[in-house]
């Protein structure tokens, strides 16, 4: 049975963001494209399990996220420090993921635990609601909220170290803040 063109168009319309999510997760464009391809193969061969009228992006993101997680677990068994390797792949090949100007941000993002990173990206960049993000990650809404909050707090710490000048406070204020708020 041929695919309903309307459904096909929904899939095609989701691919750019799906791919951006994959790149954000993998930190490597080639791996991300493989992941997107595998996701689409799986999705289109199980298109009957998609309920027309429901959220196509959330459905595709769920499949991609699950594929990424199972691959991640496999790799983790092979390589102890999977997160470290992710960070390393960003560091050695910044050109693989895009423009240099985001390098510092991506390096900080790479230092987050995977569950916090995916929650932050889904809500803060892909534009999903906390509810959709929870359903994509298969966890409670409260869990997503706390992962996002922890991710933001950690990123703020990581980014403030290197580029505190971008964040406003003058040197004296920073000295006070760094000194633990002595009065």
């Amino acid at each position, binding site marked *: 049975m041929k*695919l309903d063109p309307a459904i096909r168009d929904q*899939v095609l319309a989701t*691919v750019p963001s799906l791919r951006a999510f994959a790149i954000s997760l993998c930190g490597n464009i080639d791996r991300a494209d493989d992941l997107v391809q595998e996701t689409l193969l799986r999705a289109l061969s199980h298109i009957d399990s998609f309920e027309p009228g429901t959220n196509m992006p959330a459905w595709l993101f769920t499949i991609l996220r699950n594929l990424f997680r199972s691959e991640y677990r496999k790799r983790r068994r092979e390589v102890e420090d999977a997160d470290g390797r992710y960070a390393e792949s960003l560091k050695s090949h910044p050109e693989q993921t895009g423009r240099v100007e985001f390098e510092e941000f991506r390096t900080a993002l790479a230092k987050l635990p995977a569950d916090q990173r995916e929650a932050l990206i889904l809500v803060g960049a892909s534009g999903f609601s906390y509810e959709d993000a929870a359903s994509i990650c298969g966890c409670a809404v409260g869990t997503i909220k706390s992962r996002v909050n922890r991710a933001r707090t950690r990123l703020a710490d990581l980014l403030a170290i290197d580029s505190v000048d971008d*964040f406003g406070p003058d040197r004296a204020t920073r000295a006070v*803040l760094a000194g633990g*708020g002595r009065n």
Partner: protein
Amino acid sequence: MGERGKNEEMKHRRTNLEPLEQDKPDADKPETLESMGKPATQQKDVRLGREVQARIGQQLRAMYDDFVNQGVPQHITDLVRRLSEQD
């Protein structure tokens, strides 16, 4: 449009991020007897936190949009079209 203009634009974009716990309105409650003895820098921390968080939101979306705008490789689009034509 220069980068500065782009960043300005980003600031006005919708985000689904809710305020951090420390940013929520009740964190701004008026000074009470209990809080009066606490260092003023704690309040400064909250304001600094907001700036930093806004900046993180912008950078995250800018990075993501950069990935979106790279476009989709032809072989992936072809794959979807091919699979959707299959019987």
